[in-house]
């Protein structure tokens, strides 16, 4: 079943106006900063939020179209929705929460409870099946919510930050579990996440929202290689600047030059990896290099490297070796030159 949704919802101050398409079997990741309208889109597709304009087609058939006064109620849309705040039924045990959708769709009680128990096992909390939600931890509740949405095999899956409350291990396991499920899944899944890894590992298409509109759309590779918004750049861990190109020089709005190795012109983005940033306490002399005056605002070990946030002519994230920090005796608040080779800078039209 394909999904073709054009969601228009008027909010005080701004409108949400988003098109989401997905072919049968696709997983679409909906990315964007807080308040961009991701949850609203999911709710509209699920039938919980009436749209003011646009339309929602499931498999080519309109389930909602204000211009024709069509509005199929949520209970008939055959969707599975993981709510951002779970919304587990407080009066039902974990098992009965999961079995609820099956029972609603006519499965016998015994069968429904058995399937529910199996799903709870799949998400790693088989032993908590009899617990009421208020006796579950945050992450345990989220797993129940995931199981509850998946168990009915709906033709459309809507997942609102389904892994946010999980611990690192569970996140990995459930991400794999989800991927396996989504690969075999004949419908369309729409996944909202703030975690790059979720999006990159699970999605076929990324749709990036900001303030209610789509600012970028593409495959994970395209989007992560050429982010077109700060949000995505931060998500995939790249530094992003926007400016006007003139040959190899990109000039930002505040007049700072970024030199790349390739020619371009007009409005462009320039991006580079944090690990491409080197630091120096004195202005470097090599002419082929970018060097910006900054100050360290954050500094913390991160895996093999030390991650720094720099503010100044440009605001950057830099990953350097612990040795570099030690030898330069750097600490938070220190001024520092951020140095990037021109060949590390990737420039593409805005």
């Amino acid at each position, binding site marked *: 079943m394909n999904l073709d949704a054009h969601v228009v919802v008027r909010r005080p101050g701004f409108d949400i106006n988003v098109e989401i398409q997905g072919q049968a079997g696709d997983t679409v990741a909906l990315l964007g900063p807080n308040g961009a309208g991701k949850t609203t889109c999911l709710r509209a597709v*699920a*039938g*919980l939020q009436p749209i003011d304009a646009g339309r929602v087609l499931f498999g080519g058939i309109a389930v909602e179209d204000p211009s024709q006064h069509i509005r199929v*109620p*949520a*209970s*008939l*849309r*055959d*969707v*599975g*929705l993981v*709510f951002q705040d779970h*919304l587990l*039924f*407080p*009066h039902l045990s974990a098992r009965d929460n999961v079995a*609820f*959708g099956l029972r*609603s*769709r006519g499965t016998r009680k015994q069968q429904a409870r058995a399937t529910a128990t199996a799903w709870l096992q799949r998400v790693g909390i088989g032993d908590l099946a009899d617990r*009421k939600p208020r006796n579950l931890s945050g992450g345990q509740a989220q797993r129940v919510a995931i199981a*509850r*949405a998946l168990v*009915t095999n709906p033709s459309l899956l809507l997942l609102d930050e389904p892994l946010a409350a999980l611990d690192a291990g569970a996140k990995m396991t459930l991400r794999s579990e989800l991927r396996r499920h989504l690969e075999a899944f004949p419908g369309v899944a729409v996944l909202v996440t703030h975690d790059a890894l979720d999006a990159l590992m699970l999605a076929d298409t990324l749709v990036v929202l900001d303030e209610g509109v789509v600012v970028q759309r593409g495959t994970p590779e395209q989007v992560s290689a050429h982010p077109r918004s700060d949000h995505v750049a931060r998500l995939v861990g790249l530094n992003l600047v926007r400016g006007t190109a003139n040959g190899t020089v990109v000039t930002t709005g505040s007049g700072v030059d970024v030199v790349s190795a390739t020619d371009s012109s007009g409005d462009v983005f320039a991006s580079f990896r944090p690990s491409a940033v080197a630091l120096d306490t004195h202005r470097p002399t090599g002419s082929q290099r970018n060097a910006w005056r900054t100050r360290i605002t954050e500094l913390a070990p991160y895996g093999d490297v030390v991650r720094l946030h720099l503010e100044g002519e440009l605001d950057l994230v830099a990953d350097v070796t612990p040795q570099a920090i030690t030898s330069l005796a750097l600490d938070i608040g220190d001024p520092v030159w951020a140095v990037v080779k021109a060949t590390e800078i990737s420039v593409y039209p805005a």
Partner: protein
Amino acid sequence: MRLLAPAALGLAFLALPLIGLLVRAPWATLGDRLQDPSVVQSLRLSLVTASTATIASLLVGVPLAWVLARTSFLGRSFLRAFITLPLVLPPVVGGVALFLSLGREGYAGKVIDDWFGITLPFTTAAVVLAQTFVAMPFVVISVEGALRATDSRYDEAAATLGASRWRTFTRVTVPLSLPGIAAGAVLGWARALGEFGATIMFAGNFPGKTQTMPLKVFLALQTDPDAAIVLSLVLLAVSITVLAALRERWLTGAGV
């Protein structure tokens, strides 16, 4: 303290008159009363009719409360106010109103008589009808309050899981507002148990058939006020026993 003081004051105010009754009651005669088969009969009739009326009120009242709480339409607030009217109506006038509608000569009663050959007034069914008439508003209004106080987003969650409105209602909405429904049922039951004016008018005061405890108390009051007090206390004792046993079970059973 600021909370406990008014609570204590409220409790004292309710307790004072009841203590008055306890003090005045001629306890010596209590044993005799409890042996009197007509007292037992009235008590049984009261319990049966009040419970039937409560169940009837719940069956139609909870859906009505749901309509008020969860749908929105023009005139809803009028409808809600309308539902409280049986509370405001002096019960005796309520009895007259029941005659005018469901009595032998009433506009609906006539139809029922013609079609089914049933005349309602002066029967045990009339007692139940009169009690339902006065008790249902309590159920509707307090259940509506409870429904409004529960989070309707659980209804949404149920809808995305494919639950019909009915299933959502029975499996989600009702369980979540069970404390409120229990409160409504308690109010309705107690009100039905104590119902006097509409009953004596519409159902008459026939021992074994329509003479509930409050009617018996009324009758006793005519001749022997002390007996009336004892009978009232018997009614109170039965009521308190039933409610104390029942209520906690419901509430704790809800498990929310």
